[in-house]
């Protein structure tokens, strides 16, 4: 024991360096998570917030209520709908665009790099206003273009399934930029000698792409998949600003459900239970990915 303390003191420098990060992590992440976990077993509401003696432990009631809550069922279904369709689209398009942009270095490519990155740095409120106009059933641009081709008005945000797809379209458009930059950086990190060797061996373009570029992008693809998946499981901003969860709860996501319960109806205990379910889903999905990835490494 004494030995251990002495050893720690002697090698204190690394600990001092990670201490600030660790402290912040504990203070702003771990402790709140633990408190939220405790709250999820209480009936905490506004009254409880004002005076803690009004809070009482109600066991797993919040969780059993969640399981019976039809809106929560819809939120779970919608979230998986978003993830299953949205995540592959984001990865496919950001990788595709990165590959195309990597073909050249002249002005056109630079300009388009900026164009594709623009949505990622645009304020979400501005996006909501513009897309709200685009999606408007009566005078929106999309419906106007469709009317030129004699297509009937599409209720972009007013039909449960179409509204979900509209939000996915918006989120994909917004999500491409940042992932594209990650892919571009990874692409530029591939040594040119591989390509030269391939060319000397007479490899065709698609062979180079399939057997050199993609395998060497493995780490980037894995990183983008994990972060995108976590991001999409917490799908929030788009339904929050565009539809507030409607129509018929068709666009409510788990994160939005939690927000509404917690900050609109002040049911903090219930919202905490919801956020814990989401937390566990995210952990399971992420662990699953690491597991699959390990299997991939073994080959």
């Amino acid at each position, binding site marked *: 024991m004494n030995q251990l303390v002495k050893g720690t003191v002697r090698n204190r420098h690394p600990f001092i360096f990670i201490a600030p990060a660790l402290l912040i992590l504990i203070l*702003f*992440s771990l*402790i*709140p*998570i633990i*408190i*939220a976990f405790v*709250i999820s077993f209480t009936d905490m509401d*506004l*009254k409880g*917030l*004002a*005076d803690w003696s009004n809070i009482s432990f109600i066991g797993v009631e919040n969780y059993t209520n969640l399981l019976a809550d039809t809106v929560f069922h819809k939120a779970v279904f919608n979230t998986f709908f978003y993830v299953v369709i949205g995540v592959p689209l984001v990865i496919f398009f950001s990788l595709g665009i990165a590959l195309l942009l990597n073909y050249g270095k002249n002005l056109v490519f630079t300009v388009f790099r900026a164009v594709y990155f623009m949505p990622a740095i645009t304020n979400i409120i501005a996006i909501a206003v513009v897309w709200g106009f685009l999606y*408007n*059933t*009566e*005078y929106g641009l999309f419906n106007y273009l469709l009317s030129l081709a004699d297509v009937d008005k599409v*209720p972009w*945000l*007013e039909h449960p399934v179409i509204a979900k797809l509209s939000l996915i379209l918006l*989120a994909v458009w*917004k*999500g491409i930029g940042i992932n594209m930059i990650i892919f571009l950086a990874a692409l530029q990190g591939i040594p040119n000698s591989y390509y030269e060797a391939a060319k000397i061996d007479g490899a065709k373009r698609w062979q180079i792409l399939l057997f050199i570029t993609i395998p060497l992008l493995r780490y980037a693809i894995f990183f983008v998949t994990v972060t995108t998946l976590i*991001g*999409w499981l*917490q*799908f*929030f*901003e*788009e339904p929050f600003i565009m539809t507030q969860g*409607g*129509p*018929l*709860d068709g666009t409510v996501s788990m*994160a939005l459900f*939690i*927000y509404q319960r*917690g*900050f*609109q*109806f*002040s049911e*903090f205990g219930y*919202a*905490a239970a919801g*956020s814990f379910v989401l*937390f566990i889903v995210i952990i399971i999905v992420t662990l699953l990915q690491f597991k699959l990835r390990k299997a991939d490494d073994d080959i």
Partner: protein
Amino acid sequence: MKKKGLVVPAVLAMGLSTALAGCGGGSGDSENTLSVWAMGEEGKLLDEMTEAYEEENPDVTVDVQAIPWDQAYDKLLTAVASGNGPDVLQLGTTWVAEFADAGALLDLTEHMEDYPDFNLDNYFEGAQTSMKYDDQIVGIPWYVETRTMYYRTDLLEEVGYSEAPATWDELKDAATKLSESGEDVYGLDIDLNDQITPFIFAWQNGFEFDTENPDFTSPEFTEALEYYTSYFEEGISTTSEGIDIIQAFKDGQKPIFFSGPWMINILNDQAPDLEGQWAVATMPAKENNLSSIGGANFSVFHNSEKVDEALDFISYMNEVDTQIEWMEKSNTLPSRLEAWEDPKLADDEMYSVFGEQLENTKGAPPIKEWEKVAQELLSSIERINIGGADLDEELESFNEKANSMIE
């Protein structure tokens, strides 16, 4: 998409604010500073009003904090959690019950006699609802708003109405005729996101909101909702967001709608060419022509150390003359009955309609679950209008849910 662990920031805010509660009260730095929280536009304008008060009371400085509406609720939550709030706060009438229930508002009952301006009879009957919670007096109405009917006089004339429709039947008839007058014309616009509109119809049909155990399957309520949803079923109102109401009103696509007093200025600003072609009228009647009353109250935070100063300030703001001055500055309607005798309001053709309507109003029921109940009803209505659900079944299940929400 990026909203990491929503509960986390909330919990953090709670924890931090409790930790910081020890350091300094919320009542500003100096002993004679009265801190006031006001929301939205009013918050920005209130600062100009306090100068006159400070001149009269040189030993008091009023520190107004303007809080945007969309942050107001969070800000109030934090104040409640930390017990670290202002001395005086402006509170939207629908929030009163919730915060009063949490014990955030000081009971003013014992001070009522000292301040004649606070007398309940000074205010509209509907507004008195928001002053009380249980047996306490928790707020003094500052300004009020009510819903009336805006309509295009010229278009209604064309379908044979030289006066505004005065009954439910006339409204339905006029709206139907207007809808038939052209493609994409919706005779009556009903805002589906507005929480109070279904209740306005229900009140007009004689429904009483029993705050203990309301009956939403009663014939009065059911009939009102049948009337409300029939507009959507028959295509007289649209469920789709469509064109902005101002533009649609201008184009004649939505020639009738219900809204509050703020719309007068918006219409004057954004549709100046329309002048003389539109008017406001009191609500069409069934059993009665009740409308809702809303607005904002002044309350004193429960642990304020400057109760007397706070009450004095509120009393000053609620004097008839100050209210008139405030009305001119902010275009909000005064809560004091006496203020309405002023020719600026009584002789104005628009405002006098609001004055008349205000006599016949009810406030949102003073229950802390109001927001939840109202939102649940909107979901039910959405299922009927868009999802094609059966009205009676929906009301049955809404009734069950609402009653389980209300403790």
